[in-house]
């Protein structure tokens, strides 16, 4: 059913989850969680990670029912052909919109921090062409690259570690300054930078091994990334005083801008360059999720044929998101989409399949 060439091992699966989760959100996350959760922001991230763990469990339980189907092929099996195909298209649009927003936010940050005068379209074309080259490959090649580019996360960690030269732990105390309610509200903010684990829905059948191992790999990936995010947020919280924090939209970069080596003065530039890898892989993950669906509907399962026009759609989306109002609209759509397609719908589908099973037996 699944060709030998696109099978991946469980270790690779873990890195795919990791790389799809790390994305553009990390730069602005500390600022956002601090706004509601104050010094307890890092707890919010951990709570968000836990919540995602629960969602992963739901998605896994759903996928386990159809061990050799992607979401696009098991949706029609559960809900019937027409509704299933309609829902598949909804998922494709959600994935494409996610990819488009990632791209747009990436372009925003690069324009603000590094290339102030480069036209936006040129930057978009450069990044889309690179992503296209990878997205057209089979999953095994994509997974190989994801494994190697996880090294960049270690580099980012090391760069952040340098912040510990001058920290002030008193900034985070009292931890529950904002109250648990606010901390949980912060967790909903932290949920969105962590999205990307939806890739389980699409690549579950491509992974070798038993379902238990797959769950372990996905959970481990999620845990690593939650810890990484929590660490970054924690570092920002103890470096910037609460008053300053609300002024800086991308605390991580401001923090790095402050440090310097003997030879390299602007560490934030190095960080951003490394970050390019992380963002591209996240984008490729989204594109892959969407094009697998498009390929199934229009190209007899060959996802690579769907990549070029998916790129074109992304380009248009990212150009549109230049307007703050439109990008806000996209953000709201994504939040709704996330809750419906990744949390709500799978839960309903899961109950549904259990009911069907029960009735049959």
């Amino acid at each position: 059913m699944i060709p030998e060439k696109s099978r991946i091992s469980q270790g690779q699966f873990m890195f795919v989850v990791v790389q799809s989760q790390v994305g553009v959100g990390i730069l602005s996350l500390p600022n956002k969680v601090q706004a509601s959760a104050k010094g307890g922001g890092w707890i919010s991230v951990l709570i968000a990670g836990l919540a995602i763990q629960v969602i992963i469990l739901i998605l896994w339980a759903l996928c386990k029912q159809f061990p050799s189907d992607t979401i696009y092929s098991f949706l029609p099996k559960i809900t019937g052909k027409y509704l299933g195909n309609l829902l598949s298209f909804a998922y494709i649009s959600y994935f494409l919109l996610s990819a488009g927003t990632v791209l747009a936010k990436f372009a925003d940050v690069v324009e603000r921090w590094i290339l102030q005068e480069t036209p936006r379209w040129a930057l978009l074309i450069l990044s889309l062409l690179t992503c296209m080259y990878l997205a057209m490959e089979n999953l095994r090649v994509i997974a190989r690259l994801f494994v190697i580019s996880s090294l960049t996360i270690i580099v980012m960690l090391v760069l952040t570690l340098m912040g510990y030269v001058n920290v002030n732990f008193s900034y985070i105390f009292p931890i529950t300054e904002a109250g648990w309610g606010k901390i949980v509200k912060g967790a909903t903010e932290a949920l969105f930078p962590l999205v990307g684990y939806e890739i389980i829905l699409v690549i579950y059948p491509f992974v070798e091994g038993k379902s238990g191992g797959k769950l372990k790999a996905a959970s481990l990936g999620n845990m690593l990334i939650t810890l990484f995010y929590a660490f970054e947020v924690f570092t920002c919280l103890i470096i910037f005083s609460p008053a300053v924090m609300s002024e800086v939209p991308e605390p991580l970069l401001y923090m790095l801008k402050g440090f310097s080596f003997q030879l390299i003065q602007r560490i934030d530039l190095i960080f951003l360059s490394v970050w390019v890898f992380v963002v591209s892989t996240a984008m490729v993950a989204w594109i892959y999720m969407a094009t697998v669906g498009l390929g199934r509907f229009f190209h007899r399962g060959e996802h690579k044929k769907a990549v070029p026009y998916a790129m074109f759609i992304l380009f248009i989306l990212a150009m549109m998101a230049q307007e703050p109002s439109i990008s806000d609209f996209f953000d709201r759509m994504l939040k709704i989409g996330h809750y419906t397609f990744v949390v709500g719908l799978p839960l309903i589908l899961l109950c549904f399949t259990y009911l069907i099973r029960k009735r049959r037996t």
Partner: protein
Amino acid sequence: MRYLLRKIFSNKQTEERPHMKMNVFSSLDKNLEFIENQLFHSSDLKWRSIRFNHLEGLIVFFESITDQQRIQNEIIQPIEEKREGNVDKVITSLEITKKSDLCEVPHALIQGKCVLLFEGTVEVYVVDVTAVNKRSILEPENETVIRGAHDGFIEHLMTNLFLVRKRLMNPNLVVRYYQIGKATNTKLALLYMQDLANPDLVKEVDHRINSISMDTIFSPGFIAEFIEDNPYSLFPQILYTERPDRVVAHLMEGRVTILSDGDPSALILPVTFFSFYQSPDDYHRKWLVGSFIRLLRLMSFIIASIIPALYIAIIGFHPEILPENLIFSVKSSIDRVPFPPIVEALIMQITLEVLREAGVRLPSRVGQTIGIVGGLVIGESVVRAGLISYPMVIVIALTAISSFVAPSNEISLSTRLLGFPLMILSAMFGLIGIMFGLLFILIHLCKLESFGTAYFAPIMPLRMKDLKDTFIRFPIWSLNQRPHDPHPKRLNQERNSREWEQDDPGKE
């Protein structure tokens, strides 16, 4: 469907030459006339008449590719002495065959054999008396090492096989001959270890060699282009070497080697990216030193491909990344130059490539000119004249030297070509451009596979055990397993060679 179409439109129909059979005439003159006609009265076709068993006979041969001394000693002399008897027994040559088909005779003649014909006999004797003219075994000039074996392959296939067999006295070493090129009839030898090389790999290589249908095969480069997986890639996927020790080492890792007659380079496949940065030297040094030097080589790959791009990005986009005093000294030199950094870099890089190519062609007596022109005129005057800045000259010089560090010429050329697109990207997008360029290269490396082996193994896919002999070289006694990338039949290669440490009889 597509398969069917391809089958219909392919022009690769096997054009078997209609094999005509022609019995040997009983008349000597008719035979000679036939052979002469078949070979178009070529001037180097010679014959000499002899008499044996009271029959008139002829020895026909090409004087250009037969050893006339051997004809004299092994055929004519015994025949003249004995005058009678059985031809098989009289002639002292190693290889004699009888043929009754006259059409095979011209083919045997061009391979350096000589043919004996007798009046009234309907069989001919084909005797192998090929001349061997070969140069002596020398150290390959472009793969020299400080320690280690100093012999290299030459243009003679048998000598090359001798060099390999002498090092690898093992019945499992298999040699398979091929003859490819319909016009040139080039002889190839495929070497592999029966108990190590993956049978699928051998079968695939055999299949690909057999499908070559060109009529001229000059060099192994032809073969490489016919059989490699990704002809559009910039990276070499087949390792060329003139060193028998390198061939043996790779054979023992389960890879296969192709040797061809008339060329000293052996093709080793499938190889990974990192094989191009391993040198036999590494294993003659202490492992710490070897590791250091290998790291140095890999670093030089990075320097050679990205340093010019990085320089352009920093000068053009982010000078603030450098410390202040460094910016001032660099800027003061750059401000006098009328070109943008990318133009500067391209001018210098292309000049360098021209110098390098000229250096290969120039006879050694005028070689000094290159040193003067390159070193003095280009290096010094170009800066004095204010055309190029000093830092740029330094950067390009560094690039050039680093690119020559690679032990394989192919990879060093690829590295330098790789620099150009990166330079252009960095001139357009700065650091971000370089990063996307590197990402693109990484994706490409991930994608490459040759003969079922991932090209960037053991990094992608990651295999920790094989990392022992990749960036650094672990002590040989810790390399218990062969590299996994060619999928050898047996993985273990070493076990407890330092066992003596344990069973040391209590020395205090």
